[in-house]
């Protein structure tokens, strides 16, 4: 298993969220990805910017070609996953919120950060935990 302690070399792992603007699920994917990158797996989780990736960002695309990537999508359209597969190859793992959150929550029209409740933050934390499980599993098999 990869040692994630201080001083150890940790495999960098990309996380790309759909960040969809039409539904709450998009906001939650974004919040969870940021939490993983900033607080839970800093230095190990690298967030990839989906708009930049699609618009031709070489740095993002090269990273996704060279390192494992986890896609985090709100719905079954799997926009983040499809984007990686189109331009850089297979994702190593993927998360779809519909697998563990209620659909009426995910498709809620509450999208702005200023409308969010504590319950929404708890949901984002849960998604972040799922992302971390995937990161740890990938790192363990590196």
């Amino acid at each position, binding site marked *: 298993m990869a040692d994630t302690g201080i001083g150890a070399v940790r495999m960098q792992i990309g996380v790309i969220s759909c960040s*969809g*603007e039409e539904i709450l699920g998009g906001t939650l994917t974004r919040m969870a990805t940021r939490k993983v990158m900033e607080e839970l797996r800093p230095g190990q989780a690298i967030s990839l910017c989906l*708009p930049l990736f699609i618009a031709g960002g070489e740095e993002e695309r090269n990273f996704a070609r060279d390192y494992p990537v986890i896609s985090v999508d709100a719905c079954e*359209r799997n*926009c983040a996953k*499809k984007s990686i597969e189109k331009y850089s190859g297979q994702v190593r793992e993927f998360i779809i919120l519909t697998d563990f959150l209620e659909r009426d929550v995910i498709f809620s029209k509450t*999208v702005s950060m200023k409308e969010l409740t504590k319950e929404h933050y708890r949901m984002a934390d849960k998604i972040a935990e799922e992302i971390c499980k995937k990161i740890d599993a990938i790192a363990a098999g590196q």
Partner: protein
Amino acid sequence: MSKIKVVPCSGIGKVFGLLSREAGLKVTKELCPELCEAVCLARVMTVDDDAKESIEGKTCIAVDGCPKMCAAKTLEAAGGVVKAKFRAVDTMRLHRGEDAGTGTFLTDAGWNMSGELAEQVSEKVKELAKEEA
């Protein structure tokens, strides 16, 4: 007449993306929901059929975070008629020295900047809606 599409980039890496996202949402949800609507940029990017249909040949406003202009480029590539392009970084330049926040949260100053950007976008929405009426 279909609603004008207001599409922010929502870039995740820096505060610019969050500023653009919140500005776009304010316009579509609060300032002029009767004239415009949001479309998931990721759906447009992946050429989802429904999303493409809602963009192709339609009047769009891109609300980008940074000079890379990913939303504008993507909308144009999807056949959208991009009649206005905004950048959060331009709004930030008017507030040099102020801390807007990060890609995770906006400070009060950041919310103000986002609100200013939203006002500019909403004025454009109204102008375009009048032209198209």
